[in-house]
């Protein structure tokens, strides 16, 4: 896989050498790395980053792999594939322990093909995971995620899906949840738009709470964000949002909402996407700093945005580069405990909270039979 690694400006981890080291993922990797093949000394902070990541791997909040693979006729995730930013060698190198497979659709699919297209992406994800049993494992719950990690597999969670994928039907939402969908992005429908949630939209959020499906608010209108935070009994997530205070990108979150997210115990997953954070690795780190400061260390996470249309920040060009990002944070004085929350702990907690909320809600509430027409009228 060494030849698949681009040389970069960042002092390197020497991808080829450390590939062997990832096998155990037990934090002993440094000793296994043959010094002879490492061309430059690895900075101490990166050594520490790798040690931390071995214990607390990255749970990546947003991978575009499903859509990209649906457009490729041939690929090799097992040995590595230059057409992709994600493959098993580089996931291992990057210490990825879990990833959310985004089920986002191109705009033109929303409206008349969203359900079928979403089912196709779920089917593809299932097939890919089944074809890579040594590397990947499907996970529907926090416990599945832990199990996958205990078996040295990367946990693959499904979501976020487009809100259009439920076709304005709570029964369809429940079917998607049974197929493993864990989050839904609340935008682009009659019931979750610029004006916030309609009455049916509120009911969708309550039903998502009952099912343990996370509300993803990246790209949602401010009104929808506030409305969802008011309705949701479970933590919400921003699956790919940076700090609006540093870069006023429409998908980034302003400070007042980051503060509200802290109160909700939700999670803002900062994307390694240049257009949202800035072109350099340190820009991504700036956003992580900011979100950690404003939302709190319990409410920040990372979204790789690999294999999406996003331009990646320099030095974070594929899924192998998380150790470099973590090294930067350590250099900035992040305590180990906060790093472990950032990479793994927060995603686990949010999944677990959502599962717990769902169990409690199921005791109180039967599956909702509300319809869009009944709650919002036919208008």
């Amino acid at each position, binding site marked *: 896989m060494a030849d698949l690694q681009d040389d970069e400006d960042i002092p390197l981890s020497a991808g080829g050498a450390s590939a062997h080291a990832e096998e155990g993922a037990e934090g002993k990797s440094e000793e296994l790395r043959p010094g002879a093949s490492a061309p430059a000394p690895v900075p101490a902070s990166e050594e520490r980053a790798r040690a931390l990541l071995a214990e607390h791997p990255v749970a990546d909040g947003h991978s575009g792999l499903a859509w990209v693979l649906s457009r490729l006729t041939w690929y090799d995730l097992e040995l590595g594939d230059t057409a992709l930013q994600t493959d098993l060698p580089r996931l291992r190198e990057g210490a990825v322990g879990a990833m959310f497979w985004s089920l986002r659709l191109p705009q033109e699919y929303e409206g008349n093909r969203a359900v079928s297209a979403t089912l196709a992406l779920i089917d593809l994800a299932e097939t890919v995971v089944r074809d890579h049993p040594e590397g990947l494992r499907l996970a529907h719950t926090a416990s599945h995620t832990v199990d996958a990690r205990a078996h040295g597999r990367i946990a693959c969670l499904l979501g976020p899906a487009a809100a259009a994928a439920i*076709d304005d039907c709570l029964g369809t939402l429940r079917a998607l949840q049974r197929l493993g969908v864990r989050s839904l992005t609340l935008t682009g429908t009659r019931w979750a738009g610029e004006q916030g949630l309609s009455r049916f939209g509120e009911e969708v959020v309550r039903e998502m709470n009952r099912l343990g499906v996370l509300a993803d608010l990246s790209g949602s209108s401010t009104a929808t964000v506030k409305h969802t935070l008011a309705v949701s009994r479970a933590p919400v997530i921003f699956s790919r949002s940076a700090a609006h205070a540093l870069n006023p990108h429409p998908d980034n979150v302003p400070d007042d909402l980051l503060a509200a997210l802290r109160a909700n115990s939700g999670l803002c997953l900062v994307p390694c996407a240049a257009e949202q954070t800035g072109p350099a690795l340190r820009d991504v780190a700036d956003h992580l700093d900011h979100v950690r400061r404003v939302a709190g260390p319990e409410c920040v996470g990372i979204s790789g945005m690999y294999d999406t249309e996003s331009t990646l920040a320099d030095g974070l060009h594929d899924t192998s580069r998380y150790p470099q990002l973590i090294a930067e944070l350590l250099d900035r004085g992040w305590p180990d405990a906060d790093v472990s929350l950032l990479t793994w702990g927060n995603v686990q907690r949010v999944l677990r909270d959502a599962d717990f909320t769902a169990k409690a809600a199921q005791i109180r509430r039967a599956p909702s039979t509300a319809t869009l027409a009944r709650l919002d009228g036919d208008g």
Partner: protein
Amino acid sequence: MARMPATDHLEEARATLAEYPVADGHNDLPWALREKVRYDLDRLDIAADQTGRLHTDLARLRSGGVGAQFWSVYVRTDLTGDAAVSATLEQIDCVQQLLDRHPAELRRALTAADMEAARAEGRIASLMGAEGGHSINNSLATLRALHTLGVRYMTLTHNDNIAWADSATDEPGVGGLSPFGHEVVREMNRVGMLVDLSHVAATTMRAALDTSTAPVIFSHSSSRAVCDHPRNIPDDVLERLPGNGGVAMATFVPKFVLQAAVDWTAAADDNMRAHGFHHLDTTPEAMKVHEAFEASHPRPVATAATVADHLDHMREVAGVDHIGIGGDYDGTAFTPDGLDDVSGYPNLIAELLSRGWSRADLAKLTWRNAVRVLGAAEDVARDVGARRGPSVATLDQLDG
């Protein structure tokens, strides 16, 4: 009930069903719940007596000796594209809710072993069948999603042609199955979903039998030789079932099984059209026209004996190992006398006993053939699944 044939056999019928209950191929309760109460199951609770409102409730399933039910997750064919898929997912969700609400009576069943386990526990094995290829919107991924969600058969069409298969009640289209249609059948074999040939054109029946390596079913179709209606099965197709291992489940719908009812329905439909209505129109004005017709032309009445005539013939042509029962309750407005609702199966069994059917034959008819066919589909899936990955074929690729 107009007549009670063979009441003297009723006790023996109940005893037979106690051992080998009915595994019925088709019940439209989910669609009835959608139409009547939009899935608000508190408002139409099958734990209560729903006589007069539904053909189906838990008590009548019990008294009818039902031990397994394929619940149809049918959606209307005027729903197309995503709308059909989404509505099918809602229908599946409805069945799931029924299972969640009535765990003591209904048991989720995905396999033949689940069916036997349900029988051993005295619960009703609940399976799902999709009714029409429109439910997968030309996508094999969606077919697999339905299978993952528990659907164990798919009728290839409903009353209208689809892009890759012809319906019995539509004009000839692709003439059987298109290349993609054949691929759908192969993929159903691979995942272990039974190919259901009720509703399809005879050309499509033959094409599917040519391709399927697993036994097929007819979830609710009777014999065309006994009553000439396109929804029924021609003898040449019935004759192929022993070779295929499949099961033809006779339906009770009077307008398919009784020639007089077939003719009456055609005349009633003509009358509707003559008055400017679609023949399926149920608006009050249309119903008024229909009721006037019915007042002057009494509706012919089928009985358990009518259905037994079909089963006699089907047993003779296909063999006793290849027949079953698919009542189509809550999917049809009218039912035969004596088979008025799901409590009526013992009357049919009594009629067959009076005609000399053995207990062993009845066990196959009601239960054993249905279990065998699902188990065989599982075996084929295991075998094919080891050789073939999920098909990524598309309609555009194969049919141009």
